[in-house]
Structures are given as structure tokens and as C-alpha cells.
């Protein structure tokens, strides 16, 4: 049995989500290979070879793989899929985009968002926004899996010494092309990898207030900024900051929820955080039912006070 982990990378480096996915593959108990499909991605492939627990890196390099187009990346995975019993993707936007294409072409079901490995064919995954946990068993010969990164520790990024093998890049499908990317510029840690997250809700009232109140707190704590769906829908925060069932799933050491009521779908995205702090003036807010420390207060007073006290 051998697993193939599809690396999340930016050609220059390996993204953290890859490390959690390697841990899931190791938990399955197989030999672990990593595919780095990109363009001028030698540095990322070299970094993948250093990950503890990885025995081989397959590096496919070509212009067709530069933008991570689902059609081309899926073709790349399918070209080598025959060698593997398990194919694992991190459950990131990229992983979720490509994995089902691979599963469908292999005519196998996909197991999405696993949070635990029970055996090589049995996994746990949350359903209904995390309100229930299903234990599922795949009856297919090949298991195509996406891994919820918060369910698994990160593998050590050094200590391994895997061989790097090159593979020919898949030809371009000719059916889709990359036009452009608007990346949110930020010096802050990435939301899904941050140790501390401060998150704002609809109570902030405007995008100006959101920045004015949340930014100093994030700066003081060296934290990433998150937001509830209500705050994102109202235009107070960028869409990629959304924490919740349909946004990012996070599990930092400390999650500070400011003016967030705690809708089920938001809780689904953050309730695995180690310590949760809730600041809300509504004593009945559901967020208090999951918070380790609740402060019933007006956030416009309490948050600046907190910034001053830190």
C-alpha cells in the first residue's frame, strides 16, 4: 500500500496544509509519496523531500501546471494514480477543486474532509456543519480523500530525505485558462495556519469600524484576522476571511470572537480552537456556550481596553 499526497504549494515553498495531509497519510499506515505539480517548482519539490515520513517526491513541472488548473492537475494525478491505494489532498480550495475530478475518472467515491483515520478504509468526517460525526467505510479499491487540516498535526517539515523523481507534465486541456488573481495583501499570518485569530462579527457595523477595532488587537497579538459570515456578507471584511462551515475551518491556540453571536455555521469553523474568548454584549449569544472565557461587554469599549492591557 502506498499513498500519494498532492502538495499544496506556491512553486517556491510548500504550504502548511501539505504537512497535515502527510500526517493523515502516515496514519493510514502506508508508504507516503508526495506529488508536487507546478511550474519552476524545484524549490517546492526540494522542500517536500525534507518532510518527515515522506519516502518519495514526484516533481512534475510545466507551464500547464503553473496556475493549478483543475483539469491539468487532475490529469497529472491520474497519470500516476495506478501506483497508489490512497490519494490524499488537503481540503483547501485547490484540493477540493481537483480531488473529485480524480475520483470520478477513477470511478471511485470520494471521502471528503476526514478528521480521523480509523483504518486504511475507514475514516471519520463531520457532516451537517459538524453537528454530527460520521464513520464511513470506502468499498472502492482506491481511496480518494480530502483531509481537514485541523484534524491532524503537522508533520515535521525537516528530517526527511526523500528521493525526488521527475515526471513529464500533463498537456494543457485547452478548455480553461488562467486570467488573473487578486490576492489579499497582508503581513499577517495565514488564517488557517495562525496560532491566534481575532475575529469580528456584524456588531462591528461597518468596514471602517471593523478595521479600526480589529486591526490594533491583531497587531498586538500577532494574530490573523477572521470574520463571521454576517460581517463578510455585509461587506465589512473580505470574503477570504470568513470562518465557518462554508469558509475557513480553523483551530488556533486562541480564538477571540468579537461581536459574533455564534451561528451554528460559524461555530462549525472554529469550535476546535484550543481556547475561545467571546466578547459580546448579548448575554444570550450562543457563542458563550463554547467560549472558555466570556466577557459580556460592548466590544467598542472592551476591545480597545484589551489592546491597552496586553
Amino acid at each position, binding site marked *: 500500500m502506498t499513498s500519494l499526497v498532492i502538495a499544496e504549494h506556491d512553486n517556491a515553498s510548500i504550504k502548511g496544509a501539505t504537512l497535515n495531509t502527510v500526517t493523515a497519510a502516515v496514519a493510514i499506515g502506508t508508504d507516503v509519496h508526495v506529488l508536487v505539480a507546478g511550474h519552476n517548482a524545484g524549490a517546492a519539490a526540494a522542500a517536500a523531500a525534507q518532510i518527515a515520513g515522506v519516502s518519495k517526491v514526484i516533481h512534475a513541472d510545466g507551464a500547464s501546471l503553473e496556475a493549478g488548473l*483543475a483539469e491539468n492537475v487532475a490529469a497529472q494525478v491520474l497519470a500516476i494514480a495506478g501506483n497508489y491505494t490512497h490519494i490524499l489532498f488537503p481540503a*483547501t*480550495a*485547490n484540493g*477540493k*477543486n481537483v480531488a*473529485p*475530478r480524480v*475520483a*470520478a475518472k477513477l470511478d*471511485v*467515491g*470520494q471521502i*471528503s474532509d476526514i478528521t480521523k483515520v480509523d483504518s486504511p478504509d*475507514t475514516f471519520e468526517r*463531520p*457532516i*451537517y*456543519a459538524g*453537528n*454530527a*460525526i*460520521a*464513520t*464511513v467505510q*470506502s468499498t*472502492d479499491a482506491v481511496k480518494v480523500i480530502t483531509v481537514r487540516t485541523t484534524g491532524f498535526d503537522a508533520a515535521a517539515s525537516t528530517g526527511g530525505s526523500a528521493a525526488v523523481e521527475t515526471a513529464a507534465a500533463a498537456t494543457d486541456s*485547452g478548455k*480553461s*485558462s*488562467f486570467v*488573473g*488573481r*487578486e*490576492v*489579499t495583501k497582508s503581513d499577517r499570518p*495565514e488564517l*488557517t495556519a495562525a496560532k*491566534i485569530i481575532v475575529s469580528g462579527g456584524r456588531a462591528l457595523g461597518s468596514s471602517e469600524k471593523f478595521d479600526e477595532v480589529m486591526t490594533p488587537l491583531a497587531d498586538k*497579538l500577532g494574530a490573523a484576522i477572521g470574520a463571521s459570515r454576517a460581517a463578510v*456578507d455585509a461587506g465589512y471584511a*473580505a*470574503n*477570504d476571511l470568513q470562518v465557518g*462551515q*462554508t469558509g475557513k475551518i480553523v483551530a488556533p491556540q*486562541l480564538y477571540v470572537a468579537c461581536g459574533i453571536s455564534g451561528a451554528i455555521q460559524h461555530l462549525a469553523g472554529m*469550535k476546535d480552537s*484550543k*481556547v*475561545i474568548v467571546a466578547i459580546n454584549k448579548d448575554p444570550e449569544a450562543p457563542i458563550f*456556550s*463554547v*467560549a*472558555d472565557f*466570556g*466577557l459580556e461587554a460592548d466590544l467598542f469599549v472592551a476591545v480597545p*481596553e484589551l489592546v491597552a*492591557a*496586553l
Partner: protein
Amino acid sequence: MKVLVAVKRVVDYNVKVRVKSDNSGVDIANVKMSMNPFDEIAVEEAVRLKEKGVVTEVIAVSCGVTQCQETLRTAMAIGADRGILVETAEELQPLAVAKLLKALVDKEQPGLVILGKQAIDDDCNQTGQMLAALGDMPQATFASKVEVAGDKASVTREVDGGLETLAISLPAVITTDLRLNEPRYVTLPNIMKAKKKQLDVFKPEDLGVNVAPRIKTLKVVEPAKRSAGIKVPDVATLVDKLKNVAKVI
């Protein structure tokens, strides 16, 4: 150009689901069922494309039990022109649904298939991508903006870290994210009109698709409960607790 829109009947998003006491699944008897919210966005987008004159016909498809007809009537009340139900009592998993949709794509030859990015019951996020693969079509998932011109579509996608724009050639598959549009309220006259629209029913066998599940659910349990902690009276106590009790700052 025709557009095919897939709609799923799911437990309403306001319902707090309960795990059955025998751990065989989630209790969905007597709970309110609705159209999957992402699929509602998909129907709205298709209808808007029709209103812009880009497409000529919007066909809503649902796969599942007889009651999915209600979901299709809702889609037709939003503005879909007709509905197709692939009726079966069998548990349908994403691969099976993708195969059923592929058979209907072959039959109807739409230029575009729009689906929600995920269903809020099984949270799989697979069907659109699987359909695209089976039909050798390009895909643009998690769409927040769609523009169709000629035989191409330009789609802005919500990805980690920001937005990305792709150009895809039609026929293609698009899956919707939350911010693509805000679905309209269905009005009573439109609900009445929807009742008269054409609704065809097929069985999976009619489409030559084997829908047997590939993944067995062994058990379903409640998630580990996170117990509520304590309320602190002021900011100073909060800082003290974080520093000295939780030791996270």
C-alpha cells in the same frame, strides 16, 4: 443555449439536526426540508442569465425521492422553465448524482451546468467537479462572478487568499459560492405558474446508471461537546486568565 441547474432537497439550514439514538444517522423525519442554499444561488444565476438574454432555457434537475418535486417546483417558481426528477429511494452519493447528471447532459446538451458548491447535509463538495470530469468539461468552482460571452465564460472564483479569474470554454460546469448573488423571493403568482410547468420523471435505470453507494456509513455520533467555560467580569480578569490560566499569550 440551455442551462442545466442541479438542485438538492436537504434539511432546512435553520434546523438543528439530531443524531438518532441508534447511531445509524441523523433524524430527518418530520423536519423542514428546503432547497440547498447554494443550489438556490445556482438557480438564481441561471435565471439571471436567461433574463439577460444569454440563455434560452433553464432546466432544473433533482435526484432523489418523490418529494424532490417540491424542490423542483421552487426552482421553477424562481424562474426555471421546466424540471426533471430522477426518482429513486436509494441513498445517492455524489458520484452517482454526477453520473445521472452526465446522462442528462448527454440528452439535453446544455452549454452550461450550474450547481451549488456543496450540499449542507453531507458537506461533500464533489458533484460539480465529478460531473465536469465525467463529461470532459472544464470547471469553475466556488464562483462569485459569472460572465458569459459567446462560447466562453469568465468566472471569478473564491480561493484561499483572495479571488481568481478563469476563462473557460463552453460547455462547462460552474459551482456557486455564497456571494455570487442573492436569490429572489418567490412570489405567489410565480408559485402558481410553476405548478403548470413541465416536470418529467425518470428512473436511474432509464438513464442506464447504477447508483449503488460506494461508501458505507458505519455510524453517526454527536460531536464531542465543548463545555462552556466561565464568564469574566472585566478585561483585566480576561487578560489574567489568558496569561496565567490558559497560558496562550
